[in-house]
């Protein structure tokens, strides 16, 4: 049996040690919250395990940066993960910097991927790659994410995919 318990310990270690490698972490005294963040990051955002969304997010989850008309609650995360998987099946996130304070975790991330799937519900894939930065702020309540502020250089991403800004149209300018 000693062999088996060793294997069991190894197995436990494998599943409890986060797979994500963070660049710099400033979370002294907030280790438990950090682990919850990393668990969500690995399993939900990189791993896209839909069945674990409820494990990491509160039923009344609220995003301050949800597009108007989009759902709140866990449905917001389901929609986000589903849409990203469709448009960018190989997208990968890296934590460059993680900062904890109070009940908040801030993550500065690198987002890398290729637009291999239909974009925004219907436009054909551009096939182009992107690499840009994103910052999320999460509030944890009872070990689950209850609130989020998040924005990043999505404009840079669009430009890397070949989209360009257009000057104001005459009708727009006249408004």
């Amino acid at each position: 049996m000693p062999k088996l318990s060793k294997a069991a310990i190894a197995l436990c270690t494998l599943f409890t040690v986060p797979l994500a490698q963070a660049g710099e972490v400033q979370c002294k005294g907030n280790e438990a919250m950090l682990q919850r963040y990393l668990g969500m990051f690995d399993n939900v955002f990189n791993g896209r395990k839909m069945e674990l969304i409820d494990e990491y997010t509160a039923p009344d989850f609220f995003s301050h940066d949800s597009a108007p008309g989009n759902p709140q609650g866990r449905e917001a995360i389901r929609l986000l993960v589903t849409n990203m998987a469709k448009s960018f099946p190989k997208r990968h996130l890296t934590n460059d910097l993680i900062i904890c304070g109070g009940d908040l975790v801030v993550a500065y991330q690198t987002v890398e991927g290729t637009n291999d799937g239909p974009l925004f519900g219907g436009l054909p894939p551009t096939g182009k790659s992107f690499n840009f930065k994103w910052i999320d702020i999460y509030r944890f309540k009872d070990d689950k994410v209850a609130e989020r502020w998040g924005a990043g250089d999505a404009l840079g991403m669009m430009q890397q995919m070949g989209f360009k800004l257009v000057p104001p149209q005459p009708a727009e300018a006249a408004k």
Partner: protein
Amino acid sequence: MRSIMLAAILSFAAVGASATETHCQGNEKNLETYLKMHDVLFMQRDAERAGEYYAPEFISHNSDEGGGGIVKMKPDDLKPMWINSKKNQPDRVLINDVILCAGDVVVARVTMTGTHTGPMFGMPATGKKYSTSATDIYRFKDGKVVERWGNNDGIGMLSQLGLLLPFAQAQAARAEKK
């Protein structure tokens, strides 16, 4: 209607600003420095005082006017960011929504509102108002910023100004046909 639809599709813009939430117990000194810098450089945009808040060895991770990748910048190199903003968007206001301190860093999530009265993103003025969000992370050493990471919701802002990307126009046309 079109702009509402576009906002729905594109905008990640902040929902209204309220009182600042601050988590900086034990880091009051960095918080105080941040708040002064916020007022002098980002609100008043007194670019001449850049050197009071930014160290000569400053490294920027920003992709906006305040940098572009991981680059070393002198305080003087940052001045155009504030000079241009003051000249082109004199009514711009930044409200701190959340401030978080840990170790030597301060994180600030702000809501930025203003009017597109002068060139922005290389685009001529539209006269339209915008409200968008930005988040910055500052590392302080001896009371000055030595490193900064940040970004803002450029897409949300551009969609409010009507300076749309072609994909947005295509998407709007699709949405209106439905």
